[in-house]
């Protein structure tokens, strides 16, 4: 019985679970697919319902995870295979080639400041680019860069140039790096870790707007998704927190938010409610108003689901104090008017029984929360189950929401279904608690003393 846990996924759920276990004195191995930890929370600007700056509350945690002597961090890594069972899992990990020797790199940033080549950034949701050598942001943990071989000029030209007896192009980063950390010959590496329990916290993706052709299907530059808008609001984002629309950099004076975009829509594959978007839409409309005082925010909604502590009050504040205009009804079509450059939003207003049309400068789609696209493979590799929508299944939804269908494997965060940060963190602590009680039992295996028969509240069993 190995009292060590592996946490798969380094979002807020995985971090919280790893910290809870590590702070109880047990070791945690945290595996994150991206070059640094934080998950989607690292993309957010400010968080409902407190409007705390997301980076400010996240950074102390990422730093703690990064420095914790009981947390072994594998970033840019994923699980290859799992053998064994509860108490003794043998997990094989694959770490992608970073092309930078992180043991030597000091994180000075010279390389990505000087790199002359850019690529589209998933992290910036298409709103801004990144370099061919990059980190996910100034606060990244670990703050060490990786090279994208599909964007790096050196690596792209290498085979051809060397065949001609010439040197590959560029190589600026290698020349400028003060510690000589660049390794163009890097290759993936494999590791094996032995743990007694596993927590799955792989989180979510947003549905791609390509799946909603009636909303432009991702072809209209000024129709973006919620995460892209978080990047526009974020002071560490591509516009340094100024709200400017992608097409021409203009400040949008009329902005339309479309709730339930893809959610609650069995025909689009997400029959469920994504649970967080009513709240983050209310937040985003408010934050927009804080940045663009003369602007007008409109929200189209089916109904407002604000079931959480102080959540309804938050939505009401948006309506009454920040002047967000709510229209009850679905949007049926979004298109770009080529003459004016405006984005036309057509929808129903079911309160006055008429159809409405708003000429917007920017449209934000609250796209459905989806499980990770590779959830089926991850589930197969770990021997757990997923439901019809692709979220991980608990052994018992009422009483064991964080326990998977496989002994020794626990679940936390949005990987089990849509939820916000407070709920995610509570679940992560719950999963960590389950693991800790296992470890405690393994170390002190004495059975609890039974109460005497007939004691108050104890029924005799026959």
């Amino acid at each position, binding site marked *: 019985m190995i009292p060590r846990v592996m946490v798969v996924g380094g979002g807020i759920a995985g971090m919280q679970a790893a910290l809870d276990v590590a702070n109880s004195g047990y070791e945690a191995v945290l595996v994150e697919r991206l070059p640094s930890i934080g998950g989607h929370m690292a993309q957010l600007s400010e968080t409902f319902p407190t409007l705390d700056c997301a980076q400010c509350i996240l950074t102390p945690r990422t730093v703690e995870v990064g420095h914790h002597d009981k947390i072994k961090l594998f970033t840019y890594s994923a699980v290859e295979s799992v053998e064994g069972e509860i108490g003794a899992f043998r997990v094989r990990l694959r770490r992608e080639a970073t092309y930078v020797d992180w043991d030597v790199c000091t994180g000075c940033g010279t390389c990505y400041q000087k790199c002359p080549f850019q690529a589209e950034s998933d992290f910036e949701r298409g709103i801004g680019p990144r370099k061919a050598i990059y980190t996910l942001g100034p606060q990244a943990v670990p703050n060490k860069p990786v090279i994208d071989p599909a964007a790096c000029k050196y690596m792209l030209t290498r085979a051809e140039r060397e065949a001609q007896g010439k040197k590959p192009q560029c190589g600026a980063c290698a020349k400028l790096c003060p510690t000589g950390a660049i390794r163009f010959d890097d290759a993936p590496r494999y590791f094996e870790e032995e743990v007694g329990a596993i927590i799955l916290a792989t989180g979510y993706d947003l549905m791609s707007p390509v799946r909603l*052709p009636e909303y432009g*299907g991702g072809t209209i530059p000024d129709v973006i998704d919620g995460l892209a808008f978080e990047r526009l609001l974020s002071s560490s984002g591509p516009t340094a927190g100024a709200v400017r629309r992608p097409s021409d950099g203009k400040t949008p004076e009329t902005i339309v938010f479309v709730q339930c975009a893809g959610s609650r829509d069995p*025909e689009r594959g997400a029959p469920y409610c994504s649970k967080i978007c009513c709240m983050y839409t209310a937040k985003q409309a408010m934050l927009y108003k804080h940045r663009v005082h003369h602007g007008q925010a409109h929200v189209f909604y089916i109904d407002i689901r604000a079931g959480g502590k102080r959540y309804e009050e938050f939505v009401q504040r948006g309506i009454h104090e920040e002047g967000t205009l709510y229209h009850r009804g679905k949007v049926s079509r979004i298109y770009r008017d*080529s*003459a004016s450059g405006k984005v036309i939003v057509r929808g129903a207003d079911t309160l006055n029984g008429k159809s409405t049309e708003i000429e917007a400068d920017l449209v934000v789609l609250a796209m459905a929360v989806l499980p990770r696209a590779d959830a089926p493979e991850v589930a197969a590799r770990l021997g757990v189950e997923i439901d019809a929508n692709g979220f991980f299944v608990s052994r018992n939804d009422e009483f064991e929401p964080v326990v998977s269908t496989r002994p020794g494997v626990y679940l936390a965060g949005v990987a089990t279904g849509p939820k916000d940060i407070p709920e995610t963190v509570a679940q992560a602590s719950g999963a960590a608690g389950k693991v800790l009680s296992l470890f405690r039992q393994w170390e002190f295996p004495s059975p609890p003393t039974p109460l005497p028969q007939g004691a108050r509240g104890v029924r005799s069993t026959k």
Partner: protein
Amino acid sequence: MGIPYFPGCTLSTTATGYDRSGRAAAAALGMPLDEIEGWQCCGATFPLAVDNSMAFIAPTRILTQAEHAGGMVTTLCVVCYHVLKRSQVMLERSPEMLERINWFTEQPYHGQVRVTHLLEVLRDDLTWEGLRAAVKRPLAGLRVAPYYGCLLLRPAAEMRLDDPERPTILHDCVRALGAEVVDFPYSVECCGSYLAVEKKDVPDQLSLKIVQSAKRSGADCIVTACPLCQYNLDYPQRSYHPPYVGDAAESLGIIRGVPVLYFTQLMAVALDLPRADWGMEGLYVDPLPLFSRGEFQTRPVPNEEADA
């Protein structure tokens, strides 16, 4: 080889030009439309009450006739197509309903007819290449805005004809005839449908938007496959004409008319059929000036601003 054809009431009474151009074009393409014998009205609306077996008797009877005529039926009217196709799907899914109706009609239907729209036959049987090869007078330079409406495509799970949000079947047909496709944002918007009967102002407003949008996108004409759409887009335009013509109409924000044609009429022109087979007499906005220029030269796109 002829194709069993169900004309339906609208094409036999008001939209006769659609019927005429459709028959003529199909015949010219070597697949004449053979009117099925003894047909009656399909009911013209798909009954939404699932237990309403009465309303399914008419469409089932037509399907039975098609079964005898060779297991296939084609239509031009989109409303008929919608009703027949959905009835067919419903009968496939509900053997109980099929049995019940068969018991009543005493004319057993076996439930296996291929219900098609002529557009579908062009795409799947003739192919667009086949159509392109048959064109004698390519409509080069003619800017055509394809207008689908809803009944042709929706509900997509039952109609299974094309993507309901980004359809291409009319686009492809227009291109095969050598014309230029004008994409406009209202091409799959609803025209107001039967509200034309009850609440005239709704389709009138919708129609204005649709026509205006096509016009602003630089279209010479709108092409459709549905007599209801054709009527709803064309008829309200008669009031854009006298007394508001030309500059006066524009200064009032009212636009000049955009002809609304059936795809079969464009086919009749492109296949170089006699004028009588074009069947354009019944249209409100006269499309003939479009075709009197002889060849369709590429002209500059009209200034959008000026028309708006």
